Each structure stands twice: as C-alpha cells, then as structure tokens.
C-alpha cells in the first residue's frame, strides 16, 4: 500500500524525538514479528506433512483400501471415493438451495419473507458443524441407520449459507441497467434472471460453490455419527461411507504407525486439494 510515500519528503524529520522514533521502529518490528508468527503454522504444517506423508502417496494409496489394523500396506481408496460421493451429493443440496436463496435475497428484496431468510442463513453460517451432525443423525440415522446420504445431508446444510452469501453478493454487483435492458425488451423477469443476470454472475457463484466445497471437504465432525466410515469402497448411498477427514481422524488417534502414516498422507492430499480449490476459486472470481 505504501501510504508513507504519499507524505511529502519535506516532513520535519529532525524534530522527531528519539523516543518517538524508537517506539515507531519497535512497533513496526513487533508487527512484522507477529505476522511471521501468524503465517508460521501454515508453513510448518505443510512442510511437516510433505516430509511425513509424501512417501506414502504411492499407487497403493490411491488404489487400495486400508489394511487391517496394525498391518503394513493399503491405501485410502475408500476415503477418496467416499469423500467424492458425499461432496457430489452435498453439492446438490448446497448449490440448489444456496443459489436459489441468493437469487431470492438479491432479486426479491421486498418479499415479506426476505428478512427471515437472510437472518436464518446468517444463523446457519454460525452453527458448529458437529451440531449439524447431530441434526442429520436425528433426521436420517435414527430411522435408516448410518449412511453416506446422512453425511451428505449434514455437509449440504453446511454449504448452504456460504453459497447463499456469495451468490447474493455477486448478483447485487450485476448493474440494474442490465436487468432493465432485458425487461424493456419484453422478456419476463425469470428469463432475465436465468439468462442474463445469472450468466453475468456465474464466475462469482462458481467461486462461492468452490469455497463451500473446500470448507466442507475437510469436515470430519459431522460425519462421525452420520456417514460413520467404512473400511471398504462403497457406492451405495444408503450404507456407511468413509471420507478423507474421517480416515485422518481415525489414523491420527490410532496407536499403529501404519495407520498414522496413512493419516499423514491423507492429510497432505486433503490440504493440497483444498488449497488448490481455494486458489482456483480466487482465479475464477478475479477473471470476472
């Protein structure tokens, strides 16, 4: 930002007392130090996972399921497929409801229900993920047992507020004149919204969906007693399913070296995917 550059260089520097100059320098140094402290954990975690997990990211990791407790070998194919399946199912709920919610808030601001929807989507954003797990447990698991569907429902609920927020914001960035132009051509409002406003805001909406996916892809807490985990590959959404964060949790708290090694490799894969997704989301939104 270089704000100091805007100050004329004729500033009477000489009159600055040493105490004030020292304090200025000291605070600047402290701020730099604090920033290094803030960023350090990220770098430390990434380097640690690279060192410990990279070796385990071999072909077996992607093509095999975990070996029995304590035995060597195996991979996390069950977790990778489970995560992908649940994220796909969660996206159906998250994108459909989230984008519709965003359209509702941005395009129907005078609807009597609008303040309620806005407030409740904010409230949902603050609800801890594990509480959503309890809710999904009560809604599905109590009646039908542990299933990938129950996990996906919890993740979908968690996606909604993020998608709503970003969709509303980008829709509001589309100039009113664009809508007016469409309406003045005699197009019905829904055509204007679906064919003109949404495409104009598509980049931002995609960003929101990607951020929401990156956020829930790392959630293990709501899956503990919904998807529950599965040591085998499962494509039946009504049966228990594994997920990367679940396997990381199990492995990290396991006493066996082999499980810990898989957990570290899984963690490396997971944060790499999340970082790449966030980076891409940024790219997409900047291009717009």
């Amino acid at each position, binding site marked *: *930002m*270089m704000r*100091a550059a805007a100050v004329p260089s004729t500033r*009477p520097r000489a*009159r*600055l007392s040493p105490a*004030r100059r020292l304090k*200025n320098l000291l*605070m600047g140094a402290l*701020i*730099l130090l604090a*920033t290094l402290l*803030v960023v350090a954990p*990220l*770098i430390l*975690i990434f380097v*640690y*996972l690279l060192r410990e997990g990279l070796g385990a990211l071999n072909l077996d990791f992607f093509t095999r399921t975990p070996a029995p407790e304590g035995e060597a070998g195996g991979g996390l194919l069950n977790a990778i497929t489970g995560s992908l399946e649940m994220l796909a199912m969660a996206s159906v709920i998250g994108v459909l*409801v989230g984008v*519709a*919610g965003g359209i*509702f808030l941005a*395009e129907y601001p005078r*609807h009597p*229900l609008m303040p309620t*929807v806005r407030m409740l989507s*904010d*409230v*949902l*954003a*603050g*609800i*801890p*993920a*594990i*509480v959503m797990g*309890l809710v999904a*447990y*009560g809604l599905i698991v109590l009646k039908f047992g542990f299933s990938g569907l129950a996990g996906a429902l919890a993740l979908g*609920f968690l996606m*909604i507020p993020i998608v709503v927020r970003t969709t509303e914001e980008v829709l509001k960035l589309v100039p009113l004149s664009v809508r007016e132009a469409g309406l003045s051509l*005699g*197009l*019905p409002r*829904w055509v204007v919204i679906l064919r003109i406003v949404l495409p104009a805001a598509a980049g931002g909406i995609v960003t929101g969906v990607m951020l929401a996916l*990156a956020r829930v*892809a*790392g959630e*293990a*807490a709501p899956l*503990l*007693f919904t998807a529950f985990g599965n040591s085998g590959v499962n494509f039946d959404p009504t049966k228990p399913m594994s997920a990367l*964060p679940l396997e*990381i949790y199990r492995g*990290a*708290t396991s006493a066996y070296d082999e499980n*810990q090694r898989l957990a570290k490799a899984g963690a490396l894969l997971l*944060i790499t995917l*999340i*970082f790449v997704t966030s980076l891409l989301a940024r790219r997409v939104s900047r291009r717009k």
Partner: protein
Amino acid sequence: MSEPARRPPARAALSSGSDRVFQILILGLASVIVLVFVLSVYQLGREAWPALRTFGWHFFTGRTWNPVGGTFGAASMIAGTLVTSLAALVISVPLAVASALFVAEYAPKWLANPVGYLIELLAAVPSVVYGLWALFVIAPVLGRWQTAYFLDPTNLPTITRCNNLWAEGQTSLQCFFVPTGAGGRGLALAVIILTVMILPYTASVARDVIRLVPQDQREAMYALGATKWEVISRAVLPYARAGILGGVILALGRALGETLAVAMVIGDSQEMIRSLWGNASTLASVIANQFGDAQEALHRSSVVALGLSLFVLSVAVNFAARWIIARLTPKGIQ
C-alpha cells in the same frame, strides 16, 4: 417520430404467469433454509428434552458427568469451552490485528497480497489436520517440558502442595499453572491450537475494516508530523475498532464450536478444570467423543443437550457480532 409510441404493457401481463411460477420455485427452495433451522431446533430440542427435564437447571450447574451412574452435569464442559475459547481469543487478537496492520499498512502490494492469502489459507486447513499436527508435533514438545518440570527437584515443594490442595478438592491460581500430566495433551495444547485456528477470522475482518479507514484520517495525522505508529494507534485503530471487535466475536463463535482438533488434544476428562496443563473437555469435544458410544437413553439425551447448548451459544454470539458491527461501525465503513 413526432408521437411517442404508446404500447399497452401487454407483454408484462403475458409473462406474469410464468414469473409467478418462477418466484414460487425460488421461494420454495429458499424456504429450505428456514426449514433447516426449524428442523435443527426441533430435533435438538426433542432429543435433549429428557435430559433437561430430568436434571433441570442442574444440568448446567452440576459438576458430575457420570455415564455409569446416570448423573449428567455439564459445568466442567461449559467451563472448558469458555476457558479455551477466551484464552485463545486473548492470545490471538493482538497477533491477528498486527498481521492485519502489516497487510493493510506496512507491506508493499507485491507482499501484501501473498501474505493476506496465506492468512486466508490458515482458515482453510481442516480441523482434523490441525489436530494431527498438534498431536504429533506440539504435544511432544510440551511433554518434554512437563517431564523436565517434574524431574527438577526445586519444583517438588510446589508439586506436593498443589497435589494436596487438589486432593482436598481445592484450587488456587498459582496451582493453575502447574503441570499435572505428561505427554503434552490437555487444556494448554487445546488453547494453542484454537489460537492458531481462529487467527485468520479476526485477521481478515480486521484487514478489511482497516483498509476502509478513510485516507484523510491518516493524512491529517501525517500532516501534523506524526510517526507511522502514531497514525495507526490514534487515527486508524480507533476508527476500525468496532469492526475489529465484530471480527473478534465471530472468531469467538468459531472457537466455541471447534470440535475435532480440540477433541484430539484436550485429553477428554469430565472433571472440573484445576490446571492449565490438565486434561479437560469442551461441549463439542464431548459430543464428538461420546455420542457414538452413548447407548443409554439418558446419556444420549444429555449429549444432545450439550449440542443444544452449543447451538444456542453460537447463535447468541453470532447475533452479538452482527449487532456490534452494525451499530458501532462509523458511517462510511459499512
């Protein structure tokens, strides 16, 4: 074109039918948001009811959490949640504000963007990954320090005195900082990891409000011959104060609900906290650790009641944050 063409708004009338269908569709999907909230309250309330009816207010004040004996009081978990969250908040706020100042005021643009982005990535690291790192990297370091403390003979009188106090069920402030276990797990590690986890929330809100402080605020101070720090401390921070406070409370909401990282490192003890280094638990960590194994109806209901408490707490904190941001932010910053 002497006369403007006067067309009746026939097209608008024609399209109103399909518009209505679309609006109903959108409203129907958006109502799912309301439905999710209502279902959450209903589910949690219905399942928590047996426990709340059995214990009444005692559920929140009782210090005994005993699944075998069928007595459930959440006081130690409420204390654990508040102590870890508030301690993490106190440590993280200065760091977060400082990093926000660096990004918004000190760093040149080529550095500000990457650093700001790294701080945002900190928020993207999953809870389990933080937990894994804390368990494998930080816990051993703390464990070595604990062992060294116990092996140092000069600490023996303090350890004995505190052990006696604790045996009598008493606490003292000095003993709060005396290590109790070994291996590094416990309240302190949970505070450390929570601090890191909530840093980016405060930092990004603080950065945004600091960037919105009008430039003439700064220029007026510079014109008077102020140093950079004086400008920041007297013209920038006071102006951004309310927004930063809102960000702090949002971070508090995150800290209260943070689950797996804390559950993995806090040691999972349902006894009342007596030392910063002791094992403890939070509302969220007990839900994560016990809900799957809770066979007995009252135990299960009590764990859901913890979830309901967490739900109410998070909603209240979020409303407080929004209220502060809306009410106290100077005009022009919104």
